């Protein structure tokens, strides 16, 4: 049926300085459909969203909503036209309550109108129930976990009667149960006749949800097809423009002598206690567990962000005290945190300056930086990690998310660590870059680097780790060898309903 599309984009072009983020993207969204957008990092997905929500204006091309061409889109006009977005990093007001956050998106009226707080709470409760959540609407956003905040965002989009709902990696930080309620919410939106633009790197989700799929590559839309007509392989080939080799790199090197040895480690305030774990040289240890099981907290203890208040840490046999990140760096520990988008790199600084930031001593003599050596070191990393940039003097803020993450990795490799802690190293990263990062991790481990990898993605944990430590409730619930580990056993340990799985 040739229905009028909710949204039609034609020939969108957007350049940032020398970077052509969009080079001709066409796209349409019909009522009652889920239209997935896939592509590698830097393919132009973020920019596309920004154009639709009016956050940036395209250089060329047209936007039509409900058949009418929109002359100038800005966030306010987008809101009035029924566009709502749910981001990977929730964009809510942290000091306001759930109900207030929803009300801000939903209520219309004069600035001096009287506010009906009870109706606000009731409406928030109804909307939350529709996505299967029983959150208290009066709680402040800052007291919620990331998945809970995401649920609030979805409820808000539902409540504002949005006709065009954009979901950018909505499941990135959700557990299975929340994913289920998210899927229900999406179904709900479809039934009501809204269109959903769904962006995700998890192809399983896309096949479960989408009616149609558009593939972006290097800022161009390279194809739109019905989800039923394509296979996973087709999509991957379209996305990267080449067939993908083995999913996980082969691990041939046997781990060497023990490097890190922690015993009874804990930090009372973060609920981590009695953690004992050993990591050998050249070994990749996967740290699995549910969100909130203390994985990130353990990493932060090891990196000195939350100095341990019990237990011991030994590096290479010698007891060490780690009270600050600089202690950790001195003892050869590096940490690439999870939320790279926010604090992994310094956006105002050049790639070269970012890459040397944790290793200023290494590129300077008596406190004076050798700028040529710094640039040369950065150039080597740009080469080695295939960071896409015109120059090492380009500001990190001009790079795509995946390339920013590579810069964050470069910074830590520059310190020549003995132990690299990676927190969700491939979260929100596309298939191509993911394989690159995995290959790179295997290479580093083969070179003798020990890696402690936190990941919520079980295939990744199983594919990359020599051993897997599963955390639950702040301590290690069990250790599995690569050979004996399965998704089921990890889950059983993480959920705690099968203690014998560890035996």
């Amino acid at each position, binding site marked *: 049926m040739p229905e009028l599309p909710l949204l039609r984009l034609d020939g969108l072009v957007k350049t940032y300085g020398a970077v052509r983020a969009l080079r001709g993207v066409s796209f349409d969204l019909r009522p009652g459909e889920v239209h997935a957008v896939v592509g590698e990092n830097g393919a132009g997905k*973020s920019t596309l969203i920004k154009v639709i929500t009016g956050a940036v204006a395209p250089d060329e091309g047209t936007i039509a909503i409900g058949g009418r061409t929109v002359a100038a889109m800005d966030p306010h006009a987008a809101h009035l036209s029924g566009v709502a977005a749910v981001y990977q990093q929730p964009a809510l007001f942290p000091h306001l309550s759930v109900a207030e956050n929803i009300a801000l998106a939903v209520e219309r009226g004069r600035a001096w109108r009287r506010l009906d707080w009870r109706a606000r709470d009731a409406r928030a409760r109804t909307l939350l129930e529709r996505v299967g959540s029983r959150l208290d609407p009066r709680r402040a956003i800052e007291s919620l976990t990331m998945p809970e905040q995401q649920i609030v965002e979805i409820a808000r989009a539902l409540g504002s009667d949005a006709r065009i709902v954009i979901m950018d990696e909505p499941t990135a930080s959700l557990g299975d149960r929340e994913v289920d309620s998210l899927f229900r919410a999406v179904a709900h939106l479809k039934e009501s006749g809204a269109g959903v633009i769904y962006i995700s790197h998890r192809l399983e989700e896309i096949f479960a949800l989408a009616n149609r799929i558009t593939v972006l590559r290097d800022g161009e839309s390279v194809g739109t097809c019905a989800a039923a007509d394509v296979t996973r392989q087709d999509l991957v080939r379209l996305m990267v423009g080449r067939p993908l080799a083995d999913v996980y790199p082969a691990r041939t090197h046997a781990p060497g002598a023990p490097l890190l040895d922690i015993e009874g480690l804990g930090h009372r305030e973060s609920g981590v206690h009695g953690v004992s774990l050993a990591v050998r040289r050249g070994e990749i240890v996967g740290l699995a567990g549910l969100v909130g099981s203390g994985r990130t907290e353990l990493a932060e203890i090891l990196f000195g962000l939350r100095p341990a208040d019990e237990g011991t840490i030994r590096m290479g046999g010698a007891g060490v005290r780690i009270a600050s*990140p600089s202690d950790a760096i001195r003892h050869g520990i590096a940490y690439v945190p999870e939320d790279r988008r926010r604090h992994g790199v310094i956006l105002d600084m050049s790639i070269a300056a970012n890459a040397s930031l944790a290793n200023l001593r290494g590129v300077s003599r008596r406190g004076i*930086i050798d700028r040529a050596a710094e640039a040369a070191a950065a150039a080597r990393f740009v080469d080695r990690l295939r960071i896409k940039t015109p120059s090492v003097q380009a500001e990190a803020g001009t790079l795509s998310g995946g390339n920013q993450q590579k810069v964050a990795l470069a910074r830590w490799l520059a310190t020549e660590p003995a132990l690299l802690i990676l927190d969700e190293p491939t979260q929100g990263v596309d298939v191509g870059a993911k394989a690159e990062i995995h290959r790179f991790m295997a290479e580093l481990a083969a070179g003798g680097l020990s890696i402690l990898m936190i990941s919520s993605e079980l295939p990744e944990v199983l594919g990359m780790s020599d051993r897997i430590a599963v955390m639950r409730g702040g301590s290690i619930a069990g250790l599995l060898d690569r050979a004996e580990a399965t998704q089921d056993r990890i889950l059983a340990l993480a959920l705690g309903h099968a203690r014998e799985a560890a035996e």
Partner: protein
Amino acid sequence: MTSRRREASIAAAIAVLYAALALFAPVFFTRENFSDLFLGNFPVLLAAMGATLVILAGEIDISIGSVFAICGVVAGVCAVSGVPLAANVLITCAAGAALGSLNGALVAYAGLPSIVVTLATMVALREGLRWATEGAWVQNLPGSFQWLGLSQSAYPLVAAAVTLVLQVTLAWASRHVAAFRSIFATGSDAEAARLAGIATARVKWAVFTAGGVFTALAAFMNAVRFNQIPSNAGIGLEMKVIAAVVVGGATVGGGRGSFGGTLLGVILLASVGPALVFLGVTSYWERALHGAIVLAAVTIDALAARAQGHRASGLGLGPRAKATVS
């Protein structure tokens, strides 16, 4: 990290101002005039160097005027009690360092917002000084103190040399010294800097302390110009200084700015008043014009940032929005 374009546009504004003077009031161009202009603003420039450090680190210090007054009195009291010049400079700078370090400790280690801390110390220090001096000025300064014991014509040369050395050193250091890199990183994104192993609290403490030393130096170089030292000096100095730094291209949110920019900012704002007088405009407009220049500078910043699609620059005093285009 630097802002060459900003420096070029202020230099252009200065050139326009001086071209107008050359055209309509060539009598402006006398040696005495420039000497007066320089000596009068030399202390402002010194204090602005310190304020640039603080602002680069993403903080603000509005207690500059009060620290300036205290350090002036310290220098004067030392001079009257016969402390030799070199020792006097050191004592005055130590006083500035102590006061700056107090601000710095409250901001860095107690985690208080710098605008609140330095507003409190601005008032407390000034009132403290009034109580201690009972409003009396320091009189009977020895001849060995005035003009650093030099002749009145030799002093400007010394001051010019000090300016040149500091300016060149700071401009070079801000690009090549590792510690300065830490300041830029802390100002750009304190959390990211901390995750990179930079002791951000120490950086913040250090910039306030260094800022105090620069303010002390400013007070000292100001004190030697007169034969008495008022105990109420430096009122409003912080505004002059911060305005110059901002006009010079530093973002108030931190992480961006340069010492060359600050120098040009001081020159531009300092030249406006005298230029008005010579151009026959009533000098009542001086402050309004200062305000207009500051507004123009931040507006241009904001527009440039938007045109780049990059980010909103820190126009407020709070931490800047870190959203960016990827």
